[in-house]
């Protein structure tokens, strides 16, 4: 059985130790020093040089849509934000449904999902992307030639090209540490056990138990995303999550689709069209062949063409 991550977002305190540990162990460069205006999230997204990303979602007041489509750059001061959020329509959060009742500050440490059916892996034309002996999706840096096809093939927007380096990078699930029997850096650094690393079967059993526990404690929105019962074409995820709100809130797709699940029908549709063009061209050419047997008869397919051509011939001669 493969190794993976179970990220329990109800335990995350947003300390970003996972981000730092990942950057340190994997020697990844810093990206920027922008203030995004997106709560405490100045990392913004996973990238070629950021393989753990802690998302922060502020849900203040009754609405669970505190952050709906509001670009960080356009946001006014905190007071005005909470005021505008209060006025926004949205489903009411039942009291006791949230971790803190009315107000919630959700945090989630995002990472490559190491999908069972991985879009990047299926797309890679060089064989640089492989599934390693621990069941995880890994980019071999000595093979990747930076074609970039895996980038739009990832249903979670994880893998990315690093322009300066010319290759794609993403979480390796600390392949090097695993080979030495060590826990990946992020899981090792997590102070609340929000990130757990281990054998997937054990992690899943533990995660299911945790869902039951949370429901018993009144957090009835808790569920596993990417758990063992996933019915998407991507399949169960080797790095799965316990969430307490809709996937969209965490920037995750509800029903992620493996792009290559449609590759055979797409090939067939194209082949069918090719056959149609073959037949249509054949029809035209064979008609022309009949004409060429007796070119001076003004017949099929182009009546009156000879006459017209003769006229041009005359004009040409005059010139």
């Amino acid at each position, binding site marked *: 059985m493969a190794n993976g991550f179970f990220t329990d977002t109800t335990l995350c305190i947003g300390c970003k130790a996972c981000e730092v540990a990942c950057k340190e162990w994997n020697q990844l460069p810093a990206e920027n020093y922008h203030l995004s205006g*997106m709560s405490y999230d100045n990392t913004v997204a996973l990238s070629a040089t950021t393989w753990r990303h802690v998302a922060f979602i502020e849900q203040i007041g009754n609405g669970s849509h505190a952050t709906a489509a*509001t*670009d*960080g750059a356009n946001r006014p001061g905190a007071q005005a934000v909470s005021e505008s959020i209060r006025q*926004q329509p*949205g489903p009411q959060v039942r009291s006791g449904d949230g971790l803190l009742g009315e107000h919630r500050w959700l945090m989630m440490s995002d990472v490559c999902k190491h999908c069972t059916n991985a879009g990047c892996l*299926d797309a*890679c*034309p*060089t064989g640089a992307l492989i599934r390693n002996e621990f069941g995880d999706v890994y980019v071999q840096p000595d*093979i990747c*030639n930076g*074609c*970039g096809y895996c980038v*739009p093939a*990832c249903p*979670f927007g994880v*893998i*990315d090209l690093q*322009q300066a380096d010319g290759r794609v990078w993403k979480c390796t699930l600390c392949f090097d540490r695993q080979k030495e029997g060590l826990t990946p850096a992020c899981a090792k650094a997590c102070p609340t*056990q929000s990130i*757990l*690393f*281990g054998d997937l079967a054990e992690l899943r059993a*533990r995660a299911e*138990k*945790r869902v039951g*526990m949370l429901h018993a404690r009144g957090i009835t*929105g*808790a*569920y596993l995303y990417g758990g063992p019962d*996933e*019915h998407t074409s991507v399949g169960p995820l080797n790095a799965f999550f316990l969430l307490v709100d*809709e996937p*969209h809130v965490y*920037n995750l*797709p*509800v029903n*992620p*689709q493996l792009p*290559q699940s449609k*590759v055979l029908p*797409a*090939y067939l549709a*194209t*082949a069918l*069209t*090719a056959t*149609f*063009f*073959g037949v249509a061209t054949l029809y*035209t*050419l*064979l008609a022309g*062949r009949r004409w060429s047997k007796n*070119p*001076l008869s003004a017949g099929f*397919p182009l009546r009156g*063409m*000879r006459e017209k051509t003769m006229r041009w011939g005359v004009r040409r001669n005059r010139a």
Partner: protein
Amino acid sequence: MTQTQRDQAVQVQRSGSTAPATTYYGRPMIKRPTWKWYIPLYFFIGGVAGGAAFLGGMAQLFGGEHHRATVRHARWIALIGALLSPLLLIADLGRRGRFHHMLRILKFSSPMSVGTWILTTSGMISGVAAVKQAAEDDFILPRQSRIGRLARAVPNGPLSLLQAVFGLGLGGYTGVLVAVTAVPLWFAGVLLLGPLFLATSLASGASLLALLALFRRHKATAVTAASDEQARAEVEQVATVAAAAQLGLSVARELATPQQVARPLRTGLWGAIYQVSAVGAGMLAPLALRLPAQVRGRAVGRSISAAAATLSLVGALAERFAIVEAGKQSADDPLAYQEMTKSKPGEARPTATQQAQRANIHEGFEPGQVVQDRFVR
């Protein structure tokens, strides 16, 4: 206008409804394609070469004697395409020196891998065909030289058949390559982009052949002149069929695409370029110019023919660039991606309640129970 009103206006503008959609600060959910201008230009050049190679191969196999020029032109176009295409593709790589890593494997799940081999094979076939053509024409390569004799000995039948088949492959695979991604705009037309790219390839390839036929100097006799006109008329007939297919597939793609997903090709700069240049100039105009004469069984006038062919080529170029650039915009739109990946509750995974029930059945959970940690070293 208060901030709330502004936010709602953004909502309405983005989703077309007042229902608040949830995104993560409006951030993209997937990464945008990293391809630079080389790739859409390659789609165009490879497409023209593929379409011309197909038509030339078919003309050699099934066409009359009057298609000699068509075959010759097609072979030279295919050669130029085979020389330019790899250069453009390699230029776009992050590590250009590693282009040959594409040739390590063949993987059917990856249209890029399949396409690499289609391009490689069709390139070699085009090379052989062009050398054979040069030898036959005594052009650069002398007919009686050793290589000339060898090249002329290559049988026309299998060579032309391969050139036609791989020409179609070259024209069509790029559409599948683009479609089989997580980009909402492209994936929405997953079954239509391959056929559309193929139709565009054939329309542009046939148009270039028609254009070259127009520039060809006529022989003095009426028979040879009529032969040339006949050959051009046949090529244009194929171009018209392809343009009609292009139009039909484009309309089908529009109908199959939800409003939020289709936005980048309906609005904005690339939307305008797509609608005006690709569909208007590239599909409708050539049909409008050629069809009136064609349905009456007459030859298309020379100037009209030249205009139609040029517009078709410009349209093909615009279509390639618009679809690639609009795809990048589509990747940046979280609402489009949400539209593409939506599902009914409990369809993608059991609902929270179902999961809790399952957990309690399997684990016999008791409130307050402490779970031992066995996982973290």
